[in-house]
């Protein structure tokens, strides 16, 4: 059974490389990826997940407004019936030099299941997916 996944870059962020690279790698690893590109809204991500019957949404945010852009995302997922969906987020999530554990905690508290860090490898993300979804 193929597993469906949605990827995209949230907010008005145009940084596409990390997200594209992830999509490319995850696809190669056997997942079915729908990459909806840069500058997407929470709604666009959720709609894509519903349409494709996806089990995970992988959100990238590089430009620093990740916290703002992701606020309330888990609630919105539940609202639309995506109760069990895995939510990952990664990139340069905040503005300013904040220690990693603090950043991670912030996003875990916001309801994300996994928080990607700058410089991490796509392989690590694949491992997470395999752990969480298989």
């Amino acid at each position, binding site marked *: 059974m193929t597993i469906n996944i949605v990827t995209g870059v949230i907010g*008005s962020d*145009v*940084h*596409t*490389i990390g997200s*594209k*690279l992830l999509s*490319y*790698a995850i696809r*190669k690893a056997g997942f079915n990826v729908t990459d909806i*590109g*840069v*500058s997407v809204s929470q709604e666009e991500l959720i709609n894509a997940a519903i349409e494709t019957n996806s089990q995970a949404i992988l959100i990238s945010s590089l430009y*620093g407004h990740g916290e703002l852009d992701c606020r309330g995302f888990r609630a919105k997922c539940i609202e639309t019936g995506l109760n069990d969906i895995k939510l990952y987020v990664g990139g*340069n999530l905040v*503005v*300013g*030099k904040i220690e990693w554990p603090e950043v991670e905690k912030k996003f875990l508290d916001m309801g994300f299941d996994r928080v990607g860090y*700058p*410089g991490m*490898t*796509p*392989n690590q993300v694949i491992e997470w997916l395999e752990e969480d979804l298989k």
Partner: protein
Amino acid sequence: MLKNEKLSDEKFQAIRKEVLESWPTGAEVDIDEAVEYHKLHMADRNVPKRFLRARAEGDILIQPRAGISPINACIDLLQHLQDEGLADILPTSVDSYTRANRYKDCEEALGKSEREGRSFLNGLPVVNYGVKNLRKLVESLKNPMELRTSSVDARLSAEISLAAGYSAFIHGPICPTMHYHKNAKLGKAAEYYQHIFRLLAVYTEKGVPMTADVFGTFSNVGVPQSFIFSNVIIEALMAAAQGVKYIWPNVIMQGNLVQDVAATQVLPGLVQDYLEKFGYKDITLMTIANHWTGPYPIDPQGAYALDAINTVAAVLGNADQIMVKSLDQGLALPAKEANGAALRFTRLMIDYLKKQKVAIGGDDLEIEKAMIIKETRQLVDKMLEMGDGDPIIGAVNAYEAGVMESPFSSNVNYNRGKVMVARDSEGRCRYYDIGDLPLSKDIVKFHQEKLKDRIQKEKREEDDINLITDSILSLSRGYLV
């Protein structure tokens, strides 16, 4: 209809009227008054003149990327970069709202900033500040200034900053369209940039030399230089058509000394050839070498090291200016100290190196040079063909048709995701997948053999996807290959 020819005076004035009326500060712009201002106050702070002096002295200039709000903070920042960082040319990057021409949002953000005492903009909203305020900033500094936007429509920013004393302006239409926007159209962007190029030329014709800094497109993933250069040439031809006399072709250092030196050395000749082919004369070219524009190491020592090898290549390649990356580039928005330190470091490296004549690369260099020249010509000539001889029509058509594709572009209109790049066993950037790029078989073969060689040397599987990931991320991990 879009065509690469000089805007008529009427058309130019008609556009200007519309642009200047789009926001109140537009009314402050009066070219003739501005020309006087430049001649009186900016005479020793003119970008093209500063470059001519540097070239006569055998010097290489440095410029950071910087720009914050409010204006007083921006003055502090730029003074620091000038006095402590020893920056020769001072930039001002505009904020994201300004890039999107959302001046109303800027105004709100400025108000909120004032009330709450911290900034809500990621650059200086030059349009909102207007000519008079911007002149305060310009006068608070002793070095010449360049405005840096990456907007598809940067016309009002250009009008205001050039009137305020700036004498260089970054970008043509390609980079903003490919990397800063999701939906922008290249044809529309090209029209906007015709106005800006014409504006630079008008000042120059009135006795105030102005520079068009044509960037082509980013290399964020390690793209063969020929691809970037073909874009630079299109933009240079656009600028020249509007009468611009000082053009800066850009080259991006990608970490391999030989390939970077080869690129830096061949770029001005390539641009010159095409300018001559189209009969554009008396144009002064200055080569701008950029520190790597892709992912940087998070470790500041790694950033120093990457700046170092990029600087060596830029100097040995005879660049005229180095665009310096801050030490915290990989981490977060550049802090003034980290940016200043990177600048000062680069300045001192230049001073250790600039008097040294170092032949580098030997035959190896010659091969890379020949490849870059050949590839660039094939790409440019194909675009010219697709535009019936008109470079900008050709570029638009080529991009629309997917014959040109900027790898990892953010723009859905121009990203078919076919072109893929990787580094060979020496860290040189090659095509992994050539997509629909119009390159001849022997070139494709050259690239593929180089990558095959790496795959074999490193005992990787034929279709190892990590080859691409490793190539894109290697510099940010602190090594080349």
